């Protein structure tokens, strides 16, 4: 039993997927999140156990919409998708072959599907034209923090003239050729994980990984209708960020080394109080942005509030306060009730000035 298993307790570890891997880049400075993810701990359940259930969820309407759009794009032998690929990438008429790898002869075991994925893609890559165009539900594998993780991509891999592309189907709208920049960014981060995993597969098969394009085909509904439209999305920057995040996962050992011996975050045997104390031994790097993406955010926010941390005011405010970590300190320096340490001299002087002109102006 590894230390990470001890941390998690008897619960089965959560599987990584492209979303969790992409999330590694969302707040890479947070030790708490890094550790919980590495140990495969269910953050949602943990946060609920600690009394701070995650402040977000997904609407059933959004889920239904995403599913039905996905089905629409793939319906009738990917009729919509072929139209889009012919149009945006000049796919020739003869290339219309479609292979579904969501099961292999009725067997949906991960290993079996992955083996089949490898075989089909390798054949397509080596046999050249006519050896496969669309591959639905490929099952990819990726090394994360030392162990292999299966990725169940909701994507299609696609070949044109020996180059392979990832097709990502998303149900947010592209209106007058623009889409929500936050959602596009999230899609780009996720697609980058697939591109990365596909490249790893190619490399391990002795194929040139650069045959997997960094241009992802993003398929979304156009304007206010259900009609799909395709846009090429260059994910090179996301790939670079992902590569770096994956290479840094080894720092988990450093975090583990700083933990008290025998500590566990197990929520089945520990009371909320005990679990909460245990979780608090690992530092979080809370920023208000966490509220939109991390299940633990409300717990960490409460912690930041209790300690009067400037983190709760947002990253910009914290930087404006010259790195002073606590609100009482900042205000104490401003009104002179607290004397400044040598490294606080400058910010103290500025805060005293700010307090003076602010007070004058408010009066």
């Amino acid at each position, binding site marked *: 039993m590894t230390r990470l298993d001890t941390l998690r307790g008897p619960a089965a570890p959560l599987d990584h997927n492209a979303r969790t891997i992409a999330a590694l880049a969302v707040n890479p400075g947070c030790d708490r999140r890094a550790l919980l993810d590495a140990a495969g701990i269910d953050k949602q359940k943990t946060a609920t156990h600690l009394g701070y259930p995650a402040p977000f969820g997904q609407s059933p309407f959004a889920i239904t919409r995403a599913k039905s759009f996905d089905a629409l794009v793939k319906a009738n032998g990917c009729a919509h998708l072929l139209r889009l690929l012919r149009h945006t990438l000049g796919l020739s*008429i003869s290339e219309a072959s479609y292979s579904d790898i969501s099961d292999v002869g009725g067997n949906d075991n991960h290993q079996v599907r992955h083996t089949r994925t490898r075989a089909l893609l390798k054949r397509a890559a080596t046999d050249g034209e006519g050896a*496969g165009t669309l591959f639905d539900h490929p099952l990819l594998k990726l090394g994360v923090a030392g162990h292999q993780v299966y990725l169940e991509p909701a994507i299609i891999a696609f070949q044109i003239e020996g180059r392979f592309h990832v097709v990502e189907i998303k149900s947010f709208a592209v209106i007058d050729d623009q889409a929500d920049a936050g959602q596009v960014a999230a899609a780009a981060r996720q697609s980058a994980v697939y591109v990365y995993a596909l490249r790893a597969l190619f490399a391990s098969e002795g194929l040139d990984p650069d045959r997997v394009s960094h241009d992802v085909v993003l398929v979304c509904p156009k304007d206010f209708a259900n009609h799909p439209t395709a846009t090429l999305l260059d994910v090179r920057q996301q790939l670079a960020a992902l590569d770096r995040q994956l290479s840094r996962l080894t720092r988990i050992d450093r975090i583990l080394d700083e933990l008290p011996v025998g500590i566990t975050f197990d929520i089945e045997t520990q009371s909320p109080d005990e679990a909460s104390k245990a979780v608090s031994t690992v530092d979080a790097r809370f920023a208000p942005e966490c509220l939109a993406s991390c299940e633990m955010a409300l717990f960490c926010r409460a912690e930041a509030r209790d300690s009067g941390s400037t983190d709760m005011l947002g990253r910009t405010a914290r930087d404006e306060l010259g790195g002073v970590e606590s609100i009482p300190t900042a205000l104490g320096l401003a009104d002179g009730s607290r004397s400044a340490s040598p490294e606080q001299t400058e910010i103290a002087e500025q805060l005293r000035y700010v307090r003076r002109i602010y007070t004058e102006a408010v009066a």
Partner: protein
Amino acid sequence: MGPLILCGTVELDALEKRIAGLRSEIRAAKAAGDHATVRSLRAELRKTERAWDDALEPEPEPAKAPLLPVREQVHQALTLLGVPTAAKMIVTVSEAFFAGHITTSQLTSLRRDEEKSFRTSPYARPYYLCAALTSELLSPARGLLAVSTWPLPSRIIGPLSPRADFLTSATRIAEHIMRLTGAGEDASPSAYRLLTRMAQNIPGAVDGFDQADPAQVIAAAGAELAVHEESDADERGEAAQRAEQQLNEVTRLFGAGLKTARTA
């Protein structure tokens, strides 16, 4: 209806009291920091609110009973299309051409039921709604329905078959519309809508946002089909031969593989 309304009002009053009570209990539990109780009370509150909503509404009328049995409506649609087809398309075709009113959920267990019936007494029925088979493993192709009386190659799904079958079904829908108009009837607007939607994904089959012209669709689909036809037919023929040799009469209809029933 008078007494019913009276009864409803009494019920509504009781529910409203309960809702108000639950709200104050939640506040109290929240103030006490008892999160577990807050959660369970909230669930209770939502249930009560829904009950209140429901009490406000009369019961919905039951849907009308179908005229034709589901399997016959499906058969009708599949016969028009002539190729293995997914549930959603079957429903759409049935609606557009036969004023059918089946739903996709009615089709989910159809293949399993047919298989059961076939196993109990083989060939007792004139046709069975069966599976299409994947060319490589001869396993049932996910989500597709076919008719047992079709020649085996047309029930095989190779890599090019989804596209070829799509083009074939577009052609057959266009032909059917032409048959109808030729006979002096007109196809329903939903039939034209379906054809237009399909045509938009076939090169040269329709101009812009116009309504599709059946003859143009037939020509365009035929042109693309000519490109795929030969390799698709080869693959299907080869797989059909294997199926004849390797499969028994049940698996030939419902597919080989581990989880025949589950993947239906």
